[in-house]
């Protein structure tokens, strides 16, 4: 599946997806649940702003010293008996993995959920080699069974499907005979996949964070599937985006806590596994052979630019869960495995403006995403930068700036308000803060907080904008 998940134009996708009432209801309720859980988890932890600031400084430090830490990681993993392959492109990464799989005579490949393997189109390459590739994350497994339906959310990939649809997929593909109760569906997946785990040749996982000091790879799941994928097959391949690394276990801990709280509102997920190379002498389980593939695939060209901060991302989807535009158009409209605000920033950087120039306009610049980000990526500012680049440097805009400003409504008028608000917020907003969100700002901030607390106004603005866009604002 590569990063791009459809050929449809953004406009057509939005039209189609806005008709999907189940999807839109599911997205709205999932957003609400995940958002609330995140806010509760942040409140319970306390000092949330301080944690975010610490997360931000760790991520910035790592990016600015990425050569050092990647070097250290590779040294330490090699000492543990692991193999490390630095891949400049998706093709180099998939080529190496194909060689490893073929060298082991691998036929059955089990995978734990990994966005970067989607990005490099790994499954397709291995399937062309004649391998059976099985996704083990329940959501990904459902999508794979359903003729490779693309993911619509980076944490909950099958969010757009209801349980009746899932039951129908299971009935057709797995001879499932039970009801649409989630417990029964999950139990069936457990039993089916358990046999696959026991007979797989190769396990492939992503990497939430690598740990440079020890040459370790950290995996975060709730289902326990990454643990099984790295426990039972004799050969393990880990694929990591080159920026997903921390200096030591101490920073690992901080970022894992930010990730699990921001993604699903849990203090920690059920399974966090730190793997340091292959099994040791005398160990019975764990892989005999361990390969780490470190993927650039366009990331290095973001370093040193005004967009560098997007590489701070820890893939929690908190920004997606607060985005009023995502709420209305769903994940598939973005045409990318990375949807929502983070996707609208990252996808054009990795995939180019030719295919993805519409995405930075899929935003009301309301800043809810920036507010939610646990590592303080200024997402709405980066979206605005994209628009500037598209207009000023690339000389093309999917819609005119003027029209965008007018149609978004928030545009120019809200920017000074936002700037004032963000400067004053820390000092002034304490009395008005509820669940770590400013809900009732005083005086001149009132308009600002009304917009930020209630996504509803944005909804109509996006639709107004979209109407204008369709009427002929497009492709100017």
């Amino acid at each position, binding site marked *: 599946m590569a990063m791009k998940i459809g050929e449809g134009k953004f406009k057509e996708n939005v039209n189609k997806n806005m008709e999907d009432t189940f999807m839109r209801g599911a997205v709205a309720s999932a957003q609400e649940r995940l958002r609330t859980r995140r806010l509760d988890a942040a409140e319970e932890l306390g*000092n949330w702003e301080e944690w975010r600031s610490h997360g931000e400084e*760790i991520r910035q430090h790592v990016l600015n010293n990425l*050569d050092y830490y990647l070097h250290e990681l590779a040294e330490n993993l090699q000492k543990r008996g692991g193999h490390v392959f630095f891949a400049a492109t998706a093709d180099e990464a998939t080529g190496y993995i194909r060689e490893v799989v073929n060298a082991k005579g691998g036929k059955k490949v089990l995978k734990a959920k990994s966005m970067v393997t989607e990005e490099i189109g790994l499954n397709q390459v291995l399937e062309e080699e004649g391998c059976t590739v099985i996704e083990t994350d329940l959501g990904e497994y459902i999508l794979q069974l359903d003729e490779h339906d693309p993911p619509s959310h980076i944490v909950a990939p099958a969010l757009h499907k209801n349980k009746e649809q899932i039951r129908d997929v299971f009935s057709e593909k797995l001879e499932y005979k039970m009801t649409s109760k989630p417990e029964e569906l999950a139990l069936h997946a457990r039993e089916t996949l358990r046999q696959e785990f026991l007979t797989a040749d190769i396990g492939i996982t992503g990497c939430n964070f690598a740990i440079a000091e020890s040459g370790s790879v950290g995996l975060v799941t709730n289902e326990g599937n990454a643990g099984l994928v790295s426990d039972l097959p004799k050969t393990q391949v880990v694929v990591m985006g080159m920026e997903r690394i921390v200096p030591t276990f101490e920073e690992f801990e901080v970022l894992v806590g930010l990730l699990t709280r921001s993604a699903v509102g849990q203090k920690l997920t059920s399974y966090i596994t730190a793997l340091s190379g292959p099994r040791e002498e005398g160990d019975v389980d764990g892989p005999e052979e361990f390969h780490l593939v470190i993927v650039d695939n366009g990331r290095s060209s973001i370093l040193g630019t005004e967009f560098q901060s997007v590489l701070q991302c820890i893939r929690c989807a908190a920004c997606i869960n607060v985005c009023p535009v995502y709420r209305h158009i769903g994940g598939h409209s973005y045409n990318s495995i990375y949807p929502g605000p983070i996707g609208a920033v990252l996808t054009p950087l990795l995939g180019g403006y030719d295919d993805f120039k519409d995405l930075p306009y899929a935003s009301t610049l309301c800043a809810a995403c920036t507010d939610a980000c646990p590592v303080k990526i200024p997402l709405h500012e980066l979206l605005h930068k994209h628009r500037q680049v598209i207009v000023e440097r690339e000389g093309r805009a999917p819609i005119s700036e003027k029209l965008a400003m007018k149609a978004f409504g928030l545009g120019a008028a809200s920017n000074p308000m936002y700037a004032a608000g963000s400067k004053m917020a820390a000092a002034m907003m304490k009395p008005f803060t509820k669940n770590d969100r400013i809900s009732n700002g005083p005086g001149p901030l009132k308009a600002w907080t009304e917009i930020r607390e209630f996504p509803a106004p944005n909804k109509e603005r996006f639709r107004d904008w979209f109407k204008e866009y369709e009427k002929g604002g497009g492709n100017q």
Partner: protein
Amino acid sequence: MIHHRDSFLTNVARQLGRSRNTNVKPERNWQFRPQDKTLTDKTPNELLAVLRDQCQLIHTELIETTGEKLAGVLESTVNLYGGGPISIWQDARFEEFGLGGLINSTWPEQKVEVNEWNAARGRKNIADAERANIGITFSDMTLAESGTVVLFSSSGKGRSVSLLPRSYIAIIPKSTIVPRMTQAAQEISRRVQAGETIPSCINFVTGPSNSADIEMNLVVGVHGPVKAAYIVVEDR
């Protein structure tokens, strides 16, 4: 083997606008350290209370007992979870905590199958764990805030014992309880810095496995255990 590292890192450094640095360790001067003041003022009993509350959120039964009563409590918990087959680590703590009689006499007499991890038996250990109704391990470190047991793998302490059986029981010596993941991370990092070889697998396990991938409904028990219990025991 390390492939293509030089060209890759040279490019990274070039994009960052400087020459490559692989020798000088970067200074980490953090401006913020919220972890130093999170739960660090709690007494052991207060931490136990934090753990107790957290277990209610993670679908995990918490049982508190003394060293004298541990064997009885473990036996009844195993019965409650449907008995054997049982997989356990090869771990001196089972003897130290007075469980030798239960494991070597009581259960065999009751025809409860118990398989102790034994590297000499190779992959048979995995097959046993896969068949097991219950896996039992000690906790190497226990994180009160999140309700997490930290498991350090070794040749006698297979990863599969906490993952493959239908239910999982962790025995938590009270002295292993620390405030949160911060303290475990510091301990692991200390070992790394001291030049020790850390285990090839460190698992942070927090209750049973679960998923919310179907309409955001929480389902407890997906790939790993369906049920989990922690038995906290006063140290002997």
